């Protein structure tokens, strides 16, 4: 008798006479059956992308396909020793501060009527109502510390829409031109939510960095526009896709709801994990991957320098007896030459110079600036010795100094 080349099944030799043929066939069949029983049936894999992985020696099992964009990593704690994991791709998410961690302007911002107001970093709010509140809230899904709470204040009777908007800088938009893009986010409603379906829009313009009101942009189109989702009181991740126009130079994301009746204590929506990416939805990641990176990315548009009493501002010099100047190197290069934003008030700032002299100031004004540094001055209250150095600080709890280069 011969044997098969791979599995050693017994076979008749080519020259054997036919004898006990049925027995030979049965012997061969049984051998094949025994071998096949040790093999993995094709029914093990049930879905496109499924893999076969070992749970132990000679023990194969199905490993279901992961989500779009995930990569396979070893993990001895899992049944198969493998795990799908969201891979970090720098710049995948075009939304800055999508997880609402950065709040340089404060954790609760009151928004007046019919004017865009920046709230948590990179997010600005608009409403025709007399008052709207945007705050950083600790109610968030697993994997997040915060959400943005967009709220009609208790007892407010305004019934205009409340919108939260982020405008994306042109330099971070052009790579999406002509591509399918997906906006995704986690959202839930407050206990006293009075609105209907949520409105989600991605707006596109054809002129770079117009900023301001995206609904006034030149070449405005709305490649993603949906109002089919009725929110629940639990966070749900919502993805929406559309094709970004080939001529898009600027994009904005707007999430809105329209309240009805009189507001209760929690007439609000909570939003976090906002992501805009090319292609289909993938697992969330911040634009930069770290809190440090997110802060630096946000500082390109807004940098809080000092807030509150006795906060250091920097060094200055009396250029003459009635003018003190200071200069600051910005922590990151800003998008454009920035505006200085301060709160003015009697003696809100001070310049402490040699010999213990203290000069109180009401304001600080831009002298000249670049995207990397700012020089400012006071020539109204300053009274010092020409050539003397001074330490500049805030001198009132309401004092405030920031630089802004928003869109």
């Amino acid at each position, binding site marked *: 008798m011969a044997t098969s080349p791979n599995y050693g099944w017994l076979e008749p030799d080519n020259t054997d006479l036919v004898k006990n043929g049925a027995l030979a066939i049965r012997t061969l069949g049984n051998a094949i059956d025994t071998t096949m029983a040790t093999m993995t049936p094709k029914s093990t894999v049930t879905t496109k992308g499924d893999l076969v992985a070992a749970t132990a020696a000679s023990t194969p099992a199905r490993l279901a396909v992961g989500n779009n964009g995930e990569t396979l990593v070893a993990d001895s704690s899992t049944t198969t020793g493998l795990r799908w994991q969201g891979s970090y791709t720098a710049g995948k998410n075009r939304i800055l501060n999508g997880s609402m961690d950065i709040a340089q302007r404060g954790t609760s911002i009151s928004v007046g009527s*019919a004017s865009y107001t920046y709230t948590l970093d990179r997010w600005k709010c*608009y409403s025709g109502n007399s008052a709207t509140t945007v705050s950083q809230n600790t109610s968030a899904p697993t994997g997040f510390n915060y959400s943005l709470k967009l709220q009609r204040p208790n007892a407010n009777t305004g019934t205009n829409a409340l*919108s939260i908007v982020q405008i994306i800088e042109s330099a971070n938009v052009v790579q999406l031109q002509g591509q399918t893009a997906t906006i995704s986010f986690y959202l839930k409603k407050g206990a006293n939510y009075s609105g209907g379906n949520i*409105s989600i829009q991605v707006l596109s313009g054809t002129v770079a960095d117009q900023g301001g009101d995206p*609904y006034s942009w030149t070449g405005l189109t709305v490649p993603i526009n949906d109002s089919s989702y009725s929110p629940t009181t639990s966070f749900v991740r919502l993805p929406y896709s559309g094709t970004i126009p080939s001529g898009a130079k600027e994009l904005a994301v707007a999430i*809105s709801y329209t309240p009805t009746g009189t507001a209760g204590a929690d007439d609000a929506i909570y939003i976090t994990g906002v992501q805009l990416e090319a292609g289909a939805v993938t697992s969330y990641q911040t634009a930069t991957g770290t809190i440090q990176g997110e802060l630096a990315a946000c500082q390109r548009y807004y940098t809080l320098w000092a807030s509150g009493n006795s906060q250091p501002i920097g060094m200055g010099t009396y250029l003459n007896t009635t003018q003190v*100047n200071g200069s600051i190197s910005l922590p990151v290069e800003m998008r*454009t*030459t920035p505006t200085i934003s301060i709160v003015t008030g009697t003696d809100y700032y001070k310049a402490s110079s040699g010999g213990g002299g203290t000069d109180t100031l009401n304001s600080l004004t831009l*002298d000249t600036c670049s995207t990397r540094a700012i020089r400012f001055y006071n020539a109204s209250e300053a009274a010092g010795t020409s050539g003397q150095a001074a330490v500049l600080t805030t001198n009132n709890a309401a004092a405030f100094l920031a630089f802004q280069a928003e869109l």
Partner: protein
Amino acid sequence: MKPIYSEVVTPNGDTVIIALYDNGVMLSIPMDEANSDYQAYLNKDKAEQSTPIVTNEAKTK
């Protein structure tokens, strides 16, 4: 809330736009076309916002 605007020439010789609000906030705005505060100054006499495109539920922004 609209600010009161004024133009000042700084000691460095630059012209800066000062925007002063009722609540004491003061902006010093460089004359840079890319600066959105400067754009707001240039468009200060226009209507503040346009009517947005909205979907079923968000009938007004």
